[in-house]
């Protein structure tokens, strides 16, 4: 075990921490979205439809409520995904199990889809929403860390 740790490079040693942090961030953001709904990050709505949540509430309460519910569902998904990522990173991924490494590539894919989606829904003239930048950052970080820790997970003696 000690010899194995010595042979691990920086990315192999620290990958599980990156995913644990990512999972915890998702839990925090998810809890915020579940509690406050669409008001949690008004910039997302401004980027998508060009008005703030309070303006939308004044204009059309029905649409406001529908979008608020959707944001709460996104928050629930964030919270649960964060919990799954955290527990996988603390257990199987940390132990070097191959299936966990392959599964975590889904995070990078999901982030890229999210970034493209944020880019596409932006109204002309509006700035990009914060999830575009955070998604891009985590897409790059997860891809980098997973790619550079491949030896730990794809070695023959693992699993």
């Amino acid at each position, binding site marked *: 075990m000690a010899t194995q740790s010595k042979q691990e490079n920086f990315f192999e040693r620290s990958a599980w921490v990156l995913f644990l942090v990512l999972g915890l961030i998702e839990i925090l953001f998810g809890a915020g979205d579940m509690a406050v709904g669409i008001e949690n990050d008004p910039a997302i709505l401004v980027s998508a439809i060009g008005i703030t949540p309070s303006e939308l509430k004044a204009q059309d309460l029905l649409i406001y409520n529908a979008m608020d519910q*959707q944001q*709460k569902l996104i928050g629930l998904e964030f919270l649960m995904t964060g919990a*799954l990522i955290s527990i996988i990173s603390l257990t199987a991924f940390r132990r070097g199990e191959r299936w966990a490494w392959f*599964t975590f590539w*889904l995070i990078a894919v999901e982030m890229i889809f999210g970034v493209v989606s*944020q880019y596409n829904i932006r109204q002309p003239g509006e700035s990009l929403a914060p999830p575009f930048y955070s998604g891009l950052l985590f897409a790059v970080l997860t891809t980098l860390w997973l790619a550079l820790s491949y030896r730990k997970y794809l070695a023959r003696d693992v699993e």
Partner: protein
Amino acid sequence: MSTQTLIARGTTFEVCWIVLLMISVLATLNHIMLPLYGDPVALGIGWTGFSLYATVVIAIPFRRREKWAWYISWILVVGFAYPILIIRESYTVAYLIAAGLMAVSLLLTGPAFFRKEM
């Protein structure tokens, strides 16, 4: 413990595991389709990702009877039951039924994870 009891417990685990796996796979397929039903793409991407992670956890570590997989699988029950509290639409009833089935399956598989080693 008799051989028959052990076989029955093994069968119960297999049946419940298949139920859990089927629900998570069906949920994944359903969530992929969300944008086609008119829901935002972000919602579809997020829920599809979540369902895929859950499916992998049920397919691999849960089947290996790793305790953490049993504990974390309860989040599926919570996640599927919760929408009925914030949304008044018929599909949330289907989610609630799925949550109930998963809760029963998890309860029935519990002994396989926490049985004392012989």
